């Protein structure tokens, strides 16, 4: 039963992603690409959970977990920084003209 509910989550999430993105203008496609890149950086929390349950006495498990958390954190932090930098550059001319 649980599996089926997850299937609904999959389907609805896919639909939501599709709907949200189909409204984004071309001008924002690059920031959008890096923004959605940032969103999947939430893999970090998954990495934290598996690392948190790794056997503290197994160097192999710890190493893989460490690697996962490191990569996840890099995905999240890097995705955020570049997206924010790009979007900060988009300004409307309205204010400028008022100067």
């Amino acid at each position, binding site marked *: 039963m649980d599996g089926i509910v*997850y299937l609904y*989550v999959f389907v609805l999430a*896919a639909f939501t*992603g599709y709907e*949200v*993105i*189909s*409204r*984004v*203008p*071309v*001008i*924002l*496609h*690059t*920031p959008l*690409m890096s*923004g*959605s*890149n*940032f*969103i*999947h950086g*939430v*893999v*970090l*929390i*998954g*990495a934290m*959970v*598996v*690392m*948190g*349950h790794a056997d503290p006495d197994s160097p192999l*498990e*710890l190493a*893989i977990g*460490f*690697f*996962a*958390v*490191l*990569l996840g*954190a*890099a*995905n999240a*932090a*890097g*995705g955020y*920084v*570049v997206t924010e*930098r*790009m*979007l*900060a*550059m*988009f300004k*409307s*001319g*309205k204010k400028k003209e008022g100067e």
Partner: protein
Amino acid sequence: MMTAKWLIDLAYVGVAVVFILGLKAMSSPATARKGIVWAGWAMIVATLVTLFWPGMHNFALMIVAMVIGGSAAWWSGKQVKMTDMPQMVAIYNGMGGGAAAAIALLEFTRGEVHGGMVALLAVLGALIGSVAFSGSCVAYAKLQGIMKKAYRFPAQNQLNIGLAAVVAILGLAIATADAPGMGAIALFFVLALALGVIVTSPIGGADMPVVISLLNAFTGLAVGFEGYVLGNPALVVAGIVVGASGTLLTQLMAKAMNRPIANVLFTPITGEAQGGEAIEGSMREMGSLDAAATMRYASRVIIIPGYGMAVAGAQHKVWEMTQLLEEAGVEVVFAIHPVAGRMPGHMNVLLAEAGVPYDKIFDLEEINADFAQADVALVIGANDVVNPSARTDKSSPIFGMPILNADMAQNVIVVKRGKGTGYSGIENALFYKENCRMLYGSAQAAIGEVITHVKSMED
């Protein structure tokens, strides 16, 4: 401790909602920045509450990993130049894919997944994540200029398909085995990584943005699948939303470039010219003084920036020139083709960086009818996106792609370094037209000269 878990689950729901709203806010430049900032806070909340997940240990090492990974990425993200954005996005994306694959690897190592849907999705996520990881690294290396050549094996496509089949069968075996051996698991990951490398290696740098977008969607899917394995619906939602939106974005890009995704992956552009009719006539040169005068005394100028402006990093000069012309009473606007440059929205990002307000920037549909009323169309380092052959020449590789009607303006001035072709490697009939003049030089230098002359004309 059970209470804590419920609270964490609820917090995750909130995080997922904020992520979606954040993406939604990106549908307009006016709200986009707010959107990413919200999403950023949601990410922090998600990370913090996860520290309270019941039964966790290894905190010290975990925090070290987070600090190293996070701060390295933060620092490099702050440093990177705007023109190097695509490869930076690629590498961050690869890391997400790698993290998803590592999660699967750890779960398999600990023997926590066996049988049924869970094992199947764990393997699928591992495969996709690994491909995204190694593929993104290749994309990075290419765009960064570390890996210069496009490596092609003989019978490349057969090789790709063969390797993919081997990995898939191995994966299926692991997913259905009761207790898969570590050897098989290791081999699976190595082959999956290799698959990512050999699929992306033959693809040319110019096709890379499409590939990066596709790999971004891949990472999303991988994260979503591992989310199911971990029983974490927040990961599922975030991952699948990105998977779907990335797929759509990839399609939009491929369509705008007039190049089906299958072609990008399986018949990479090799660099040789590919047909198109020969063009008769000759190009006419123009000096920067003439160019300056033509624009200074025009009443309406439309600027068409392209890839050449990006590589020259000339956007600041272009905006300086625009402001000078506007002070002199000329109306100047920008016309952006959807695939100008090498990534979607490339020109918009660069012009935004230079400080051009986005209400001076028009896209193809908005502006194409206005060229007939323009005195000057100034083409800066653009080529394919103004090639009129796309309208008429059925043998041209860009036939059917909508183009900016620069040729309909009174005068056309083209800034480029020489007779180099554009991304598609074909001749451009526009350059031979009666009303077209070439202003040779690198964009930065050429526009710089124009600025000097315009200044000297000021009265």
